[in-house]
């Protein structure tokens, strides 16, 4: 993959590694067994263009949430680096870190646990605004009402506690909180997964509109391929800590090449029908992240695997302009 220069991209992730040490039990310690790791993110490089959406898709355990947390500087890295708006985020000093926290915001999945239950929505927003000194103190209250308006919440919700709000309304409040610091980048981790489909569509519409109006950059993480396809400009498909395919969203469907991407498409009932995707039946369970398979991590479930796949790990190689896949069949 060609090396991205810092100035071209809002976010540049290089050779990122995030490993979690497994606790060794007493017997293993005595026997001096090798330290085991969960390689949640295993050597990933990607870049996000400003004002665009990078969609990160994969099933549970693939490491996409961990990657999101690294971009938010919430996890110490095992290797590699992350540059956001031309700054290496892991070497920021205190003042710069505060500014970073203003510029990079987050929206998480569960609207029922990400809002402080004892605070009213208005109070929650005002606290963030005051802490980051986004506006002058006397303007704060009006600013918060404006935020609520922008996310489609009536001003009266300012006096409500999360308990009084529905899932969709809480997610809107979470988005208002993310917007309150006037960020440039928002990391969204499964923001619509817990919502009914009609509410999901409302929230996606809101997020797309806000992106357009405010020139926001999104790292959008989800397991639902139809959602990812709709909101993204570039899509990264993850499996067991690796990116197996990286492609422009338009290419998903007819041009996707990796067997895992194709199986995600055909498993996603309506999406598979729409694109008349090749029906790929996967066998077996997702392997353990502690003892991932040797060679290609996907070979144990891949219907096309052959000898080489069991011994050698394929690299992310170009398939076409802007389209990369790690599969021996594609090169």
């Amino acid at each position, binding site marked *: 993959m060609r090396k991205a220069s810092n100035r071209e991209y809002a976010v540049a992730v290089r050779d990122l590694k995030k490993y979690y040490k497994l606790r060794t039990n007493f017997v293993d310690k005595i026997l001096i067994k090798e330290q085991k790791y969960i390689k949640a993110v295993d050597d990933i490089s990607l870049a996000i263009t400003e004002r665009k959406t990078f969609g990160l898709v994969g099933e549970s355990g693939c490491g996409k949430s961990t990657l999101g947390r690294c971009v938010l500087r919430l996890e110490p890295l095992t290797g590699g680096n992350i540059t956001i708006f031309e700054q290496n985020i892991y070497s920021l000093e205190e003042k710069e870190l505060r500014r970073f926290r203003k510029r990079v915001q987050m929206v998480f999945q569960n609207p029922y646990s990400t809002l402080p239950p004892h605070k009213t929505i208005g109070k929650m927003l005002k606290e963030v605004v005051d802490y980051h000194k986004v506006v002058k103190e006397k303007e704060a209250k009006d600013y918060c009402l404006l935020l609520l308006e922008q996310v489609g919440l009536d001003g009266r919700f300012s006096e409500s506690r999360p308990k009084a709000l529905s899932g969709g309304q809480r997610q809107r409040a979470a988005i208002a909180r993310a917007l309150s610091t006037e960020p440039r980048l928002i990391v969204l981790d499964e923001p619509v997964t817990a919502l009914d489909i009609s509410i999901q569509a409302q929230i996606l519409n809101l997020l797309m509109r806000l992106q357009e109006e405010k020139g926001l950059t999104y790292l959008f993480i989800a397991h639902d391929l139809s959602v990812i396809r709709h909101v993204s400009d570039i899509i990264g498909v993850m499996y067991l800590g690796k990116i197996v395919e990286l492609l422009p969203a338009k290419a998903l469907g007819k041009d996707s090449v990796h067997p895992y991407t194709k199986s*995600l498409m055909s498993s996603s009932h*309506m999406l598979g029908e729409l694109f008349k995707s090749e029906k790929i039946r996967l066998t077996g369970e997702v392997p353990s992240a502690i003892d991932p398979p040797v060679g290609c991590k996907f070979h144990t479930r891949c219907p096309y695997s052959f000898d080489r796949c069991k011994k050698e790990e394929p690299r992310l190689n170009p398939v076409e302009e802007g389209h990369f896949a790690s599969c021996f069949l594609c090169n």
Partner: protein
Amino acid sequence: MDVLVIKDLSTHFVENKGKVVAVDNVDLMVKETQTVGIVGESGSGKSTVANSILGILPETGEITSGMIRFKGEELRGFSERQMQQRIRGKQISMIFQDPMVSLNPLFTVGTQIVDVMKLHQNLGVRKAKTKAIALFKKVGISDPDKRFYNYPHELSGGMIQRVVIAMAMSCQPSLIIADEPTTALDVTIENQILNEFEKLVTEMRVSVLWIAHDLGVIRRISDYVYVMYAGTILERGKVEAVFRNPLHPYTQGLLRSNPIYHEPKSQIPTITGELSKMPPHGCCFYPRCKIGDEKCLDNNIKLIKVEEDHCVCCRKIEVRENCYEYE
């Protein structure tokens, strides 16, 4: 004979704020070897229908009217003991949504399935174990003889759901009620499980009542579908008829809300607002409906047949001879 016939079922919950009608005069039917799907969003009452059938409503819930006929017998007349001994797990089994809380964490999965079989089929432990391992294999559990001795926490969500399906099938029930069983699973695992489930259902000639909010799953697994909203059936019919030609504005809105039908990055045309206060009478969907008018608030909006095996509950649809149009 029809396996399950429900007529005029109404269930309400008593809460601090008063009475909440969760199921409002619902008619439903499941024929032999048929898979019936109930699709609806949260608050539609679909899970309450399932819980009403099995008599497992929480303390605050109560069936206020209606008839639930299972293989000719009125279930509402059964005592708790009769339900436990004759119905639950034996003739009607249930599969719930969250695999992580479906099983007792203190016992191996083998113990749990053998318990069910001992209870309902009077089998000895050894026979039950053999049968259980054979069932595990049928639902796609690899190394079934080893998995038999695993505890639930040692298994993935997909594996647990397979165990639960095996348990549900173990006493050869006439009806399986599945309440969002694959919602919490990854899509590739869900796909595998649906394949295995469909094969078993055909082989064992079981009827299924499958409840979900995912239209794709419902379309795939059901023969017949009911669309529920705020406790009411708004549309029902053969699954292909309803999906190819959705009649009710709600069904249409629901299908349209799926991003796959739209150009990426475009605004998705969706149903405005949220499920909230019901109008005191008339159509429950009226507050969010784009084609409704004041007449929709009149009482007595009934299900009308529009085509073969396809009915809708909307007064805006006029049926004339062999065609229909929206008023």
